[in-house]
């Protein structure tokens, strides 16, 4: 079973996304902040995909991507930004930091699952 780490400060969003991912047959791990996510990753969590929000209290999503890319074994792990931000400048920033893709909220469940299948090998 593929593991997906979901990083978002909204507990509601984490709950809904976790339910969707579980229904689709994925193991969903949650983190309420970029710092918590990094803690989990440094503790040995090796997800097949990371989905993160952009605007969060503390470290933002782009900062998280930069930190993740420095961690051993996570250099090529796909990272999707799931955010309300739609402007190109932020996308370019995320892309330069190492993001794999950009999804603007709200995203439909079939679209999300389709993108996951595209970026996670064997999903």
């Amino acid at each position, binding site marked *: 079973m593929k593991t997906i780490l979901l990083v978002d400060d909204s507990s509601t969003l984490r709950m809904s996304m976790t339910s969707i991912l579980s229904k689709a047959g994925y193991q969903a791990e949650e983190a309420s902040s970029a710092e918590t996510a990094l803690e989990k990753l440094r503790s040995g969590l090796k997800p097949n995909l990371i989905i993160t929000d952009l605007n969060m209290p503390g470290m933002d999503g782009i900062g998280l991507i930069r930190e993740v890319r420095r961690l051993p074994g996570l250099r090529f792990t796909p990272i999707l930004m799931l955010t309300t931000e739609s402007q190109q400048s932020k996308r370019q920033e995320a892309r330069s930091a190492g993001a794999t893709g950009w999804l603007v*909220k709200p995203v439909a*469940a079939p679209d999300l699952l389709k*993108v996951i299948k595209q970026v996670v090998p064997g999903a």
Partner: protein
Amino acid sequence: MERVDHRAYAVVRRRSAWAMGLVLLAVSLGELAAQGWAELGGSTTAGTIRSWLGFLTAGLAGGVGAVLLTAVMRGSEVSRDDIRAKEELASLRERLDGILGALKAYSRARGILRGQLTGVTEITEDAAQEIADRFRRLDALVGEMTARIQTAMEEIESLSAQVRQNRARDLEVLRGMQEYLAGRQQEMEEEWQRGEQILAEAEDLRTFTSMVKDIADQTNLLALNAAIEAARVGQAGKGFAVVAAEIRALSQKSADAARQIERGISEMVESVRAKFARQLDSAARKKQIQILEEVGTAVSTIGAASADVPAVIQEVLDATRQTNDEVARVIMDGLASIQFQDITRQRLDHVTEVLEKMDHHSQLLIEGGRKDEPAPLPVFDVDEMAAGYTMRGQRAIHQEAEGSVRNVVEEEGPRIELF
């Protein structure tokens, strides 16, 4: 304002009264002095001088009174300018107090509005959590139902496979029954034909008995003739006459036997007809054949129906699977739509941030209003709000309200983009 004016005019009226009092007092003192001088008496010259002194004293008192009145009135005019300036200052202070009071009230109102917005965020969050929870419960129920249906489907499929497996054997049995029924029908036809043939053959035996009777009659006649001939030849024919008599008796016995045989055949035919009357009856035979045909048709229908059962079960199972898939899709869509709460929360958070900035700016205004030499007040730029926008909808509303916005419009990409 009204209160300040009344107070100033009261001061002027009081001062004017004092001045008029002093003038009247001076004139009165002058007159008293003149009367005093006049009452002293003496010569005419001295009286004239005293009168003049009296007038002089009264004039001096009047002059002093006039001087005093002028001074008092001048003082009143100076006081009026001062009062006017003070009135204006007081008015300005009053206005400033009003503005500062309003700003304080706005600040309190913004605090309340922030609280209200936080309340809205909490309500939507609770509602979204509840909706998500209900979807999860629904999902669990559907999952449980799906598991039960899956188990039932597996059992039905197993039964269906068994039915398919047994079907060949069952059809073989049914075919055997059909063949048996068809064979039985044929056998009945043959039995009937055989019965009829036996009866016909039995009837045919009557011909033989007739023939035996005819032979017996002719033999009797020959024997009679032989007896006549034997009698005519006399003694020589006596032996022959005995033979002829024996032949005649024999022919009689043959005729009797033939009649008995004929009677026996008749009785046998009747007996057979009585015994196989039902089988030999045409209507009854047709009825039996019809029943056998109906049984054969029924057996054939049962075979066809047993062949259809697995197909019907499969159809029901496919429809159930399709419905389950559709329910699962609806649940997923419902769960995804809960993202609205996160979007709403972010928009309300931004409004709260702007309210806080407005509150801070109001505090600076209040503090500046209290100081004689306040620090320059920073400009509150409405377009700075745009820096915090993340959503297309936020920018659109800002643009609609302001007409055009600086630093707000920026190219927006697709909703889903893979780099």
